[in-house]
């Protein structure tokens, strides 16, 4: 028996075109590849063929079988895909995912950490000091004279209780973090480089820009050869890290009893970029911190030998910098702790 492969091929192709589901595909498979299918017949009939015809027939039968097998597999994949598509279950990916709630660090803590981190990278060590201070540490040791206005009850909170260690020594709520310098120097010998963050207190009536409690960071670096140029170097690096490399800044002579020379540092106003606006009072500059070279009287007060050391010190207000950085206009917001505020940062 001989087979007309050309014709069979045409028939197969035609039938293939018509298959539209898996049942039809299965009968198609049985018809050709089944135990009693056409291909089986073909192989069975090979034995009756002559030696010459056999190879060609065999080859053609193989080709046909492969073609059909490949087709069936492909078709099956298509049907399976269609099936999956039909049975697909949806996930609405636009519904919000479940966020495990993570708390918010208070923006003042964030700012303090950011600033302390910069100083730590420069080699400073972070220390803390008490808020209830002796008058000596808060004023006297810092070369603030007995009759200085800042010692008035108008400018400093006094405690009813007196210092238990020293008779008649008044206790105050520190009005700046500078007494931290005194504590460090009394305890350690230079070289020392330290920053001291913490709360400070002044009897200011509360309004949008005043608070009786606020935060400062104090810095102190003492060694045998600290220069004014070091002060400028450290402060410049610090402020540029905090506010960006392109920051414009200036050092303006100022007066603090515990530093000499003393300076105030201004940065170009973030709002008008130095042109002058209402935020910077038309000057184009914002006062950001105070600094200077440690006054020899301060070294004397902590008992360092005369002329042996020089040092630099600086202090800055955390709330002010935070307000400038984030555009917060009311200092009271920091302590009101409205959760909508706390959770913004």
């Amino acid at each position, binding site marked *: 028996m001989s087979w007309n492969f050309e014709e069979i091929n045409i028939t197969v192709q035609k039938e293939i075109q018509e298959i539209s589901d898996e049942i039809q595909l299965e009968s198609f498979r049985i018809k050709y590849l089944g135990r009693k299918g056409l291909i089986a017949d073909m192989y069975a009939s090979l034995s009756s063929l002559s030696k010459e015809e056999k190879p060609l027939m065999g080859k053609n039968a193989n080709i046909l079988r492969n073609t059909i097998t490949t087709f069936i597999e492909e078709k099956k994949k298509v049907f399976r895909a269609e099936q999956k598509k039909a049975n697909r279950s949806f996930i609405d990916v636009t519904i919000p995912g479940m966020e495990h709630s993570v708390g*918010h660090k208070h923006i003042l803590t964030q700012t303090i950490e950011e600033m302390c981190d910069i100083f730590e990278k420069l080699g400073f060590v972070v220390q803390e000091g008490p808020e209830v201070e002796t008058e000596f540490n808060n004023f006297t040791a810092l070369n603030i004279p007995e009759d200085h206005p800042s010692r008035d009850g108008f400018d400093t909170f006094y405690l009813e209780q007196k210092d238990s260690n020293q008779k008649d020594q008044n206790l105050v709520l520190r009005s700046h973090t500078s007494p931290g310098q005194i504590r460090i120097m009394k305890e350690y010998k230079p070289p020392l480089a330290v920053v001291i963050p913490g709360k400070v207190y002044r009897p200011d009536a509360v309004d949008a820009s005043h608070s009786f409690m606020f935060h400062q960071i104090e810095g102190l670096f003492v060694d045998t050869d600290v220069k004014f140029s070091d002060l*400028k170097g450290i402060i410049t*690096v610090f402020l540029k890290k905090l506010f960006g490399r392109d920051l414009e800044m200036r050092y303006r*002579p100022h007066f603090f009893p515990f530093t000499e020379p003393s300076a105030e540092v201004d940065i170009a106003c973030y709002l008008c970029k130095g042109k002058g606006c209402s935020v910077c009072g038309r000057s184009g500059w914002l006062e950001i911190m105070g600094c200077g070279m440690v006054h020899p009287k301060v070294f004397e007060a902590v008992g360092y030998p005369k002329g042996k050391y020089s040092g630099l010190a600086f202090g800055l207000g955390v709330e002010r910098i935070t307000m400038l950085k984030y555009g917060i206009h009311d200092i009271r917001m920091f302590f009101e*702790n409205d959760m909508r505020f706390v959770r913004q940062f």
Partner: protein
Amino acid sequence: MKISLNWLKDYVSIGISADKLAHKLTMAGLEVEKTFSVDGDTVFELEITPNRPDCLNMMGIAREISAILNKTKEFPQMRKLSFPNNRCNISIEDKAGCSRYIGTVMEDVHIEPTSVWIKKRLTSIGIRSINNIVDITNFCLMETGQPLHAFDYDKISGGKIIVRRAKKGEKIVTLDDEERELDPSILVIADEKRPIAIAGIMGGKETEVTVETKNILLESAHFNPILIRRAVRKLALSSDSSYRFERGVDYDTVEVGAQRALLLIRNNAKGTIIARSDVSSRRQKTTKPKIVISKDQINAYLGTDITASQSKNILKKLDFEVAAHKKDVLTVTPPPWRKDIKQDVDVVEEVARIIGYDNLPLRLPQIQVTQMLQSPTRAIKKNIYELFLAQGFDEVITYTMISQPLIEKSGQAELKGLKIRNPLTCDQEILRPSMLPSLLSILQTNINKGQKGLKIFEIGKVYEAKGEKETLAIMAVGQRDRDWRKLKQEELDFYDIKGALQQVLKRIGLKDAYFYGEDHSIFEEGKSATVGINNKEIGVMGEIKEDILSDWDIKIKKVYFAQVNLEEVFGHIKMEQKYHPLGEYPSVVRDISLAVKEEISFQQVQDIIFQTSSEILSTIEFKEQYLGDKITQGFRGIIFSLKYQSLERTLREEEVSIVHEKVCKALVNELGAEIR
């Protein structure tokens, strides 16, 4: 202080624009806060630092400008006046309050409008012109910095000037038409009968110079800055004079100012000097400080390369006497009005600020490793922050000053805060002895604003007579994290806050912290615990009493609060950590369901288990608690599982059973528990 550019030009040529000058003044430490134009003149508003009272006048500023711009200056010639031998009747009773008083009597002065140029100078800086005499005293004040006052001599009773403290109940009507009550803390100028001026602050209305005045007494004096400052505060009254006295007027200027005024009065209002007295109550120290400083010292301090002659030139322009004995060594004597210059560093600052800080070099120093260590508590606190944040607690920062009633309102009347001697308001009269009022007020604020729940914590201080203590407080209210997949929202309870705290303590290295039931005044009975470590109480936690909440007007029932003394925590933390081998052998887990008397705590159950079991017991895991109908009254059911594991071998079922049986038996025998 306001200064006029045209006025300055009387003493020094400027030659640069007003804007440039303003910048240069600012950068030399005389900050120009505002610039405005007045009638063809430019006026600067300056902020003068308290160490520079010498700059509170035109001549002082002109001196600074001459140094900054390196220009010569020219001050008005002071022709010597000859005075008659007659003395005024002046007595300084309060010697500490007034160190010098120069009184000059002039007769037949012509009270007229002031000459145009003086008027122009004064009005440019906002001083109203009154008459030639008054205007000249104001002019001289602004020019030299010496406050002056002219009295109508004929109205001074007995022609006598007495510098004394006011008597209790004395009154004076000042030039601003206000009647003011005085007291002995206030220094006054009086005649025989009454105070005629508040010393250094303002003159009296009754002795004012008016158009009818014929004879005047001109006062030029030096008053104690502290007395003046206190009087200013007490009377809430200040003036251009008091502003300068508070900051310090130079002793010598008393004479200069008087001289200048007398010359101007003679030229502008005629008048003849008929009597004069210069009364000093204290000898003025005449020793002039000599400060020796070398070029190298200056450069070492600033990191600069300034020559000796540069420094010398700057100092001379500022009227310092400078002598150079040795090469590059200067001996410097500051002028008498520069009381702020006391030692070498003060001289360095003068040089630095005139050169300009921005023109000085900068470098980043090498900071040596110091013997001082990073404060260990900082790392622990950072850890605590992170752990609470990770558990969904928001950080708050609250005022540490509160009122005593707030403590009482929080059920802690037994606690006494540290009292402030000079509180601003009674709301901030004490330093808090507890964090509870602070957190309750945060809760109240937020609830009032419609916040449903909150989980907050603060690391702050509480204060007591012995000192201040770093303290942790946490508060939790409302619902657990919202989960839309669950039908019901779950309320936070005791175990949420306990779990948070427990986890933090464990993770910072306080593995042995424990909780035991104990009542506290602020918590609902039976719903609070004490936190302990090594037999030391470190904190409390529980459910806040409803009474307290209603006193605070907080309309929420379940508020959980904990406060932990961090000073104690810091002391008990074990910093070093060691690796524990991971168990390689399989574990056997056995559940126990137990009915125990209600008052028996899980802690007791655990204690017995650990006492009776052997080292093969590895952990106990609490699984469930049930109360209710299915259980005998007075009992509750607890289910937990015991995990048995050995690090050396695989445990045999039988050996686990032996231990487990023993445990169960002990629980039954010792606690009267029932195995279910």
